[in-house]
């Protein structure tokens, strides 16, 4: 059944940021609260999740799975459990490790063999363009983890003595 494409509402951009985990806690909490009573928001949210999945090669198998699950749960007793204490933001196992991709740059006056801490001058906001390709190549080597190709290589002749 064809329907005219709904115009994006101003709220939809907030929902989009919500999907990316980029809303502040208060706004995100408000968003979560209103989701339960706002079918249109829920619909848009699930659409955005579907877009992400589709981009990652996951397409629409079992489109009615959610309905089937919820239909079964209708006859289930509603889960009521005492509210847990506030979860710490950081997982208990990990003390603030972060994605390798987040590199903070700082200006450094190069003096060999001097402790680097003493030399970190500027605030770490200086940008370095295009760090990602190098990280990608290194990560593919070190962890076989990268999701991109285009890194063909050929051996290099370093035969001169002393190299």
């Amino acid at each position, binding site marked *: 059944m064809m329907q005219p494409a709904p115009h994006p509402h101003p709220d939809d951009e907030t929902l989009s940021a919500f999907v990316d985990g980029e809303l502040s806690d208060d706004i995100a909490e408000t968003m979560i609260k209103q989701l339960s009573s706002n079918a249109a928001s829920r619909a848009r949210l699930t659409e955005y999740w579907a877009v992400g999945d589709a981009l990652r090669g996951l397409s629409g198998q079992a489109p009615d799975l959610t309905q089937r699950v919820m239909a079964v749960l209708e006859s289930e007793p509603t889960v009521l459990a005492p509210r847990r204490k506030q979860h710490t933001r950081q997982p208990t*196992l990990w*003390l603030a490790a972060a994605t*390798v991709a987040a*590199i903070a740059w700082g200006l450094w006056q190069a003096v060999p063999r001097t402790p680097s801490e003493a030399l970190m001058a500027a605030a770490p906001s200086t940008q370095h363009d295009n760090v990602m390709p*190098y990280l990608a190549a290194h990560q593919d080597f070190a962890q076989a983890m990268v999701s991109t*190709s285009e890194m063909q290589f*050929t*051996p*290099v002749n370093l035969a001169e003595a002393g190299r």
Partner: protein
Amino acid sequence: MKAAWLLLIAVSGGAHGADSLPQTRAAAWLQRMADAARLTAYEGVFVVQHGEAMHTLSITNHPGGPLKESRLTAMDGLQREVRCANGKSITVMADGTHIKMEKRLNGRHFPDLLPADAGPLANWYAVKVGKPGRVAGLDCNQVELIPKDSFRWGYVLCAEKNTTLPLKAVMINAAGQPLMQYTFAEIKLGAAAHTESPSMPDMPEPAKQAKPALSGRIEVGALPPGFSRIAAVRRQLPNKSEEVEHWVFSDGLAYISLFLEPAIKPVETLKGQSKKGMVNMVTRQVGNMQAIVLGDAPWPAVEAIAMSLYARK
């Protein structure tokens, strides 16, 4: 697997108690775990975590011939497979309706973290065998690899009780904080022997002649103890039109990359670090080249390599 038991008894009963193993025993443990990863047949699923990012991969390992054959498949994100056999490695990706295959540089990945000749690692890492644990339903023993200097990160492995195959590996910093973790969620040891179908397709061999070094007169003055250069190639990088030269240094466990390319404009010396410091990076100009050194190693190692680069006259 009697030898493993004897080793454990000796360690726990000996005078050293919680101390590190003496070097020869340490070397033996390291070698056993390295061999286990190559020679044990297994299939399973493991999870890689670094910070909030988490990836799930399935893996099969068929030890065939002198070197292993393994297959690693991404279970989330883009469909991608890494295959390693006979010292070579390729990545296989679906690109729309096409299959793309490309050669890779490194034929090893978790759980095969240790090099084929793993004994020498005991020169740079102290080994401590710790308490038993359980990972993916199998009993294992904790094995700590503690760096003897500040040039490398440590590891805590959980080695399966009988085979000593690493079921879990946590890269840790000097304060013992986890930087990255691999864990098997599910594993079956001794899977059925594989069929004769070749896992590595016939790929065109590279031109016999290696390309001349882009880097011309750039040399490394000194490397941190235990590190040597294990690769030097010219390669394409994603989103870059010109090739760069990529060298890799390693002590067998830690990897540090150097990228060299002609400096288009004067290169500012910059230092970079991932949050909480697992990856350290330096950019500087050496001769007429831009050099980027980056690796999963503490700052002193990256600094040492970067600052020792020079242009030969």
